[in-house]
């Protein structure tokens, strides 16, 4: 392939990374924004979503679409309830102290990861996509006889991949609507703005916290259900989404949802395109250094207004 179609392909792949990443990172950002809790176990909630998707698909059998649709509902609910339970038993008792909650969520990370290893096993397991028709993509060429469309071999995508992008966009829109248009979103924003004042106005802050933690984990699980037919479910798969979400949330400005989405698209796209030219390890080194340096020199993030 020539360079042009190659970049188009990388952009498409990048868009998929970006949309799943945006969902995961918005979950992390929501939790940080409202609760001021850095959830290191966020990647494990993502992993649990993928693992549950596999289990549901196995149990239901039949057409892949049935299992997929069921997983899209069951996984976020289960993972969300687990997160709410963790919030009520652990985080609440720590009084949401930032440093101690980090240590506790590190512990939670290992607990979830190792329990999955013990029950689900160390193998990577595939999940069938609900539909997967190949679409060939055209590319233009300026030949001797002028402008024409060609269909280069290998340039294409699948309906499922396009669906992932659309579904993620819809979910992000739903989160935005929830935050801006509903009562519960209003309560969340009030808690985020001033916890004490919210308490004084009779907002059940602790229940809001539990809910936010659940929604954050549920978003990660949903992102994982979307991506698992493309990747595979594995007990260590939480590490990369966690790192990337961190990068996105920090570059986008901690706790700012629009900034998070913009940064996710930026990172997702550049991740796809950079890894065409550089080795993935080098790309990761640059990304981690970028996060560190942004936090040191521009703690409010590239788009954000608030600092940590």
């Amino acid at each position, binding site marked *: 392939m020539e360079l042009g179609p190659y970049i188009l392909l990388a952009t498409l792949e990048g868009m998929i990374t970006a949309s799943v990443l945006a969902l995961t990172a918005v979950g992390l950002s929501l939790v940080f924004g409202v609760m001021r809790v850095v959830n290191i176990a966020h990647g494990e909630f993502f992993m649990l979503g993928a693992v549950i998707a596999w289990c549901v698909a196995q149990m239901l059998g039949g057409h892949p679409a049935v299992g997929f649709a069921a997983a899209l509902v069951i996984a976020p609910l289960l993972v969300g309830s687990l997160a709410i339970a963790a919030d009520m038993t652990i985080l609440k008792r720590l009084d949401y102290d930032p440093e101690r909650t980090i240590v506790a969520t590190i512990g939670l990370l*290992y*607990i979830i990861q*190792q329990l999955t290893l*013990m029950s689900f096993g160390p193998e990577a397991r595939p999940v069938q996509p609900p539909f997967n028709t190949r679409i060939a993509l055209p590319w233009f060429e300026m030949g001797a006889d002028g402008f024409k469309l060609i269909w280069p071999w290998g340039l294409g995508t699948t309906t499922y991949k396009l669906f992932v992008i659309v579904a993620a966009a819809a979910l992000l829109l739903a989160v935005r609507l929830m935050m801006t248009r509903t009562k519960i979103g209003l309560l969340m924003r009030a808690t985020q703005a001033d916890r004490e004042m919210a308490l004084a106005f009779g907002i059940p802050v602790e229940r809001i916290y539990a809910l936010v933690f659940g929604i954050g984990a549920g978003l990660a699980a949903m992102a994982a259900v979307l991506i698992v037919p493309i990747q595979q479910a594995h007990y260590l798969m939480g590490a990369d989404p966690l*790192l990337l979400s961190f990068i996105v949330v920090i570059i986008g400005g901690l706790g700012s949802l629009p900034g998070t989405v913009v940064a996710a698209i930026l990172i997702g796209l550049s991740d796809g395109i950079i890894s065409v030219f550089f080795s993935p390890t*080098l790309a*990761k080194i640059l990304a981690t*250094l970028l996060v560190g340096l942004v*936090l040191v020199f521009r703690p409010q993030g590239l788009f954000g207004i608030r600092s*940590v």
Partner: protein
Amino acid sequence: MKVVGLHIGLLAVLFALQFVLPAYHHGNLARIMVLASYAIGYNILFGYTGLLSLGHALFFAAGMYGMGLGIQHFDLPAAPALIAGVVSAALVSGGLALLALRTTGVAFMIVTLMFAQAGYLTILYFGEWTRGDEGFVIAQSARMIAGIDLSDPTNRYFAALILFSICLVVCLWLIRSPFGKTLIAIRENEERVTMLGYSTFAHKLGAMVVSGTLSGTAGATYGLLFGYAGASFASVQYSIFPLLWVLLGGAGTVLGPFVGTLFMFYLIDLSSGITSAYMLIAGVVLVLLTLFAPQGLMGELRRRFWKGLP
């Protein structure tokens, strides 16, 4: 006096133990003493200065690779290689401190985590030199200092004990010096220390370099004594371990790191016989500690029985 007696007593017990312990536990204890030295280094920053770093594996690995690469690629003898390891840890910790200390709280934790992760990935990236995940074995012929073969169990135990004693004494001396007292004051109330006219930045910088150098010394010694350097020692897990050990033993106590390492080592050692998911224990202990005993074992001891325990 009681304090000095306690620490000399512990070292004497450790010295005597090597004559009675069976070979397996003898080897374990040597390993524990080296890892406890790492934890002592970590404790100076976390326990006494109040800075929670999630990137100490970077310093441990800087020491280990400074030493290992020196032997592997520059044919250094063991002693200069060890010094190279210590120096590289000091440089790396100084460099990271200059950047990371511009931040506080959660940002400090994430910055140290990110730079350590970048360091880990760098080791993987230069796999041609470092052999990446697989690591490299340090030849037995290179592990000799002044004609003493460090791969021999008895010598290894002595070397580990010497390292541990040095770290313990340095830590005890440091926290009783004016410098150490200032560090503790920074942990308790940084604004007030600034107002009293101390440069908190300089003190934190000093604490981080001492902490990183001790950790790196432990890393270099670990590589030398056990003959192996690998990228897994630079991974996040090795940044979490000293945190776990120190939290378990008691942050801000001199003996806490050793007690925590000892407990955790045997806890994992016992459970790895039952399941391969031994990190589960680490996770459960971390959560339980933050919930019920943020002071750790020695911290509880200090709170209940012996107020003056350093």
